[in-house]
């Protein structure tokens, strides 16, 4: 299915879930569970724990769909943010340290010639414009739901430096994406 068509279907399902329409919720689950589970697994590598967190995410989607504002942004982005927030809560409450990762995806996402980003040249282009250290910190924080302290440890960088990288990197990213 073409990504635009898929996004429109997710949008339509969430519009109906806002009205508590259960078949639309089932359809939304069918459309999104694989992608949301993948996203959750990046933050919670334990598959059982990730499945529990995913279940809670869908319960929240059902419960909180009426707070989604279609006039402000995309349904899929809203669903992903809710799911990421839930996964981040789970991993932090479980007091498990995120596993040290040698995930090749991070290298591909921050690399110049990854072959990824077929759909989203703008974010890729703007990420490449910022220095490698802030780029790695921003993408790692987003993908793995890491705190500043965890990132500082993983990237072996003083906390103050890391915060500064992220702050400046986000500012540059914002400026680039707005132009």
């Amino acid at each position, binding site marked *: 299915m073409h990504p635009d*068509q898929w996004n*429109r*279907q997710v949008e*339509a399902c969430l*519009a*109906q879930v806002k*009205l*508590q*329409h*259960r*078949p*639309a919720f*089932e*359809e939304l689950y069918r459309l999104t*569970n*694989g*992608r949301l*589970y*993948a*996203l959750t*697994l*990046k933050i919670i590598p334990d598959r059982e724990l990730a*499945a529990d967190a*995913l*279940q809670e995410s*869908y*319960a929240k989607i*059902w*419960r909180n769909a*009426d707070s989604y*504002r279609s006039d*402000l*942004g*995309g349904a*899929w*982005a809203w669903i*992903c*943010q809710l799911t*990421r*927030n839930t996964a*981040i*809560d789970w991993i932090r409450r479980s007091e498990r340290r995120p596993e040290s990762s040698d995930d090749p995806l991070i290298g*591909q*996402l921050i690399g110049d010639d990854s072959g990824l980003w077929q*759909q*989203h040249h703008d*974010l*890729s282009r703007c990420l490449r414009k910022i220095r490698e250290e802030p780029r790695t910190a*921003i*993408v790692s*924080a*987003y993908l793995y*739901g*890491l*705190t500043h302290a965890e990132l500082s440890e993983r990237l072996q960088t003083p906390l103050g430096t890391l915060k500064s990288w*992220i*702050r400046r990197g*986000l500012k540059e990213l*914002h400026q680039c*994406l707005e132009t």
Partner: protein
Amino acid sequence: MPGNLRYRQPHVREHLASHYVLGTLSERVRRRCERLMRQDPELEALVYAWQDRMNQINDELAPVKAPERVWRNIQTQLDSNRAATPRKTGFWARLSVWRLATALLLVVSLGLLLKPTPTSVQAVNYMAMMQPVSAQAEPTMIITAYKGDAPGRSHLHIQWNERLDRQELAGLNLWAIDRDSGEITALGALAQAQSTRLLSKPEWLAIKNSRELLVTRGSSPDGPVLFRGPCLQLSPWEDRATPG
């Protein structure tokens, strides 16, 4: 904005929104940010903008099918909440209404379309979220149009917002406004679409070519407009020689 004036400063708002989306805020600060978003539309808009920007990363992840137990547990949770909550006191309770409505729609659809769709939703071709003309944020109903597999089998359906009180439909009529000419086509009494209303070929074409649907009181399009909503095409359909 009630509370801390510091959050009124644009650079603080921007910082908060970007870090909220990035996921680096502590749980306590994130909760505070969510409270502020409910009070401050500008902060909420900034968060949505950052969500859309960063979400592009999620599109690069290869899907991993969730274990079967996840959906089973969600269903159990929905059912148990429905059973445990007295009607009209919680959102779970409304499921019973939807189950009934869905069952009714399913029975009609089976007869009309001759193909069972027990667990999936038929692809909506056109949808209009009907807002009251009065300044109310929530849509009152969604009107959906489904293309049939033969002339005269396309149909229209109304889905009420169960959070709001249903309105008496007697005397209300539905109209489609053509996107190019502005011509208005009558789609009949709204009450007929409460379940599933079959559409004639001209009616289907009127919806297909409409920019907006209107609900008026009385049998004239010049009557008082109660609800209106732009008509959106959601899924493509094959334009056959015999549409509608």
